């Protein structure tokens, strides 16, 4: 057997990259720098998916978020006047509400992770690790299989939502169709 790649060292490395990237996203004054920090965070997140033995999700993450959506982000940001946006205040007056919301979310996470009912946590101790060379096929089975496709309906609903968003943006952007 191959030695496992998912060592704690890589987890801490990727987590650090993600946190530093996330902080840079909100603290950089220049929007392009923020976007590049966001790309770094998204790529580190893709690597985390790999560590969770979910290569398909990692590949989709790189392709859609880092390669597709962030290009559109940059495309829009480049058309904004950087000089004017740099003079604007970066943090608005809702910081108090923001801190409360963040604290509540953090508290929720800590509660969920530490709560035990009769000695059992909410998380399973271990889960079945799918072999890497079947991951994509198993996802396809979950989504589309005639017998085992439990997420077929949710998948179709999500695609319908996206279709609504596409048509909506076309209607809003184009005055005369």
């Amino acid at each position, binding site marked *: 057997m191959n030695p496992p790649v998912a060592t704690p060292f890589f987890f801490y490395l990727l987590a650090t990259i993600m946190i530093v990237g996330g902080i840079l996203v909100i603290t950089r004054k220049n929007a*392009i720098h923020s976007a590049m920090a966001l790309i770094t965070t998204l790529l580190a997140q893709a690597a985390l998916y790999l560590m969770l033995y979910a290569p398909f999700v990692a590949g989709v993450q790189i392709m859609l978020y880092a390669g597709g959506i962030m290009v559109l982000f940059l495309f829009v940001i480049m058309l904004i006047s950087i000089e004017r946006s740099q003079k604007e205040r970066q943090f608005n007056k809702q910081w108090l509400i923001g801190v409360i919301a963040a604290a509540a979310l953090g508290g929720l996470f800590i509660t969920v992770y530490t709560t035990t009912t009769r000695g059992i946590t909410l998380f399973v101790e271990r889960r079945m690790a799918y072999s890497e060379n079947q*991951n994509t096929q198993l996802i396809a089975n979950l989504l589309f299989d005639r017998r085992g496709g439990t997420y077929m309906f949710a998948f179709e609903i999500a695609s319908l939502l996206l279709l609504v968003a596409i048509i909506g943006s076309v209607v809003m952007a184009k005055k005369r169709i």
Partner: protein
Amino acid sequence: MHDLILYIQSYLDSDRTPGAAGNIFWATVYILLVFVGLSVAVICMNWLERKILAHMQVRLGPMRVGPHGLLQPIADAIKLLLKEDIIPAEADAVVFWVAPFIVVLAAFTVFVVVPFGRTHAITDMNIGILFMLGVSSLSVLGIVTAGWASNSHYPLMGALRSSAQMVSYEVAMGLAVVSAIMMSSMNVEGTGTLSMIGIVEAQKAQGEWFIFKFFPLGIIAFGVFAIAMVAETNRAPFDLPEAESELTAGFHTEYSGFRWSLFFLAEYSAMIAVSSIAVTLWLGGWLRPFPNALTGDIWELVFSLFPGITFLFLAGMCFYSTARMPKHPLFKIQTMGLGGFGAALAVIGLILFLPPVRVRVVDIYWFSAKVAGFMYLYIWYRGTFPRYRFDQLMKVGWKVLLPTGLALLILTALVGMRTELWADIQETLHL
């Protein structure tokens, strides 16, 4: 000594890729080999492009540095490395510095999954083709940031054009790829694969290259991909991001010296990368022509002689040119150099005839030969097609290639599922 030979033998006779075997040392060797091979290929492409374009335009091309300009790429490289590396005063220095590295990293990382042979890939991922498309789509980030960081008008225009173009053509490209992946599921279990090696194995098992499968669906999907891949790599006739008559040099106008050469390197290795995707998905990857029709030891032998014959042919061309060199004493060193080059090629060709070498390089040879065909096509396009206007580019991408890709997807699914569909229809009607 004997142990050492056995050790090396165990690597050479391995039936798995270094990544699958989990061998870090062997994987590193492969990575270095791929890196060196790519760099040599880019140098060759540099010379070939200038020569072939020149001959298409009834010129001679580079003739001064070395016999027939053979040393021109090396002279160019030295010139680029010695040139002053300018960062514009108003540029965003950090982003300006990072951008070329993003492009080069994206262009080289995809080669991790390119299958040069049954066992000659650095690794085989279950998401191989997805990885290649995803990582190569990252290179547009480098181009966009390069254009923006230069803080100049032409580069920004080039970057905007590039991002719009690459995002548009990625869609059509993805649809064409999906139709090929669906073809790979035409087996007993009915499960396809995204692995690059798996796709070639599927073509071998099904007995035909996917370009000929479900005629004419395969060849149309290949055509859509072949057009989209030229647009993806910003090459003529889709080279609007660097259209020199309109934007001086597009997104890399402000770059000079080493950084510019990184863009150059990335452009050519991206061309090789997308050509490898096309070869793997539609042209049978490393499979030799007619692997199922012309079987038997004799044909195996004949096809495995091709690498050596190719090199001997090149050597013969060199010797022919040596004989035709001017007899003036000033050309003495050049004549000797060309003769020496021919002799080196001949030696390589003879080594490739040795049975242990022959059987191990034949896969790599067929893969490289197919990719080389695409490289020639790239030069040919550049020599013959006029550049698209921007609205024409968008029209081709969104109004021609995208509907074609969608129709292909549906038709491939219908043809692939025809027996099951027919059974379903019959069942419903008889009930």
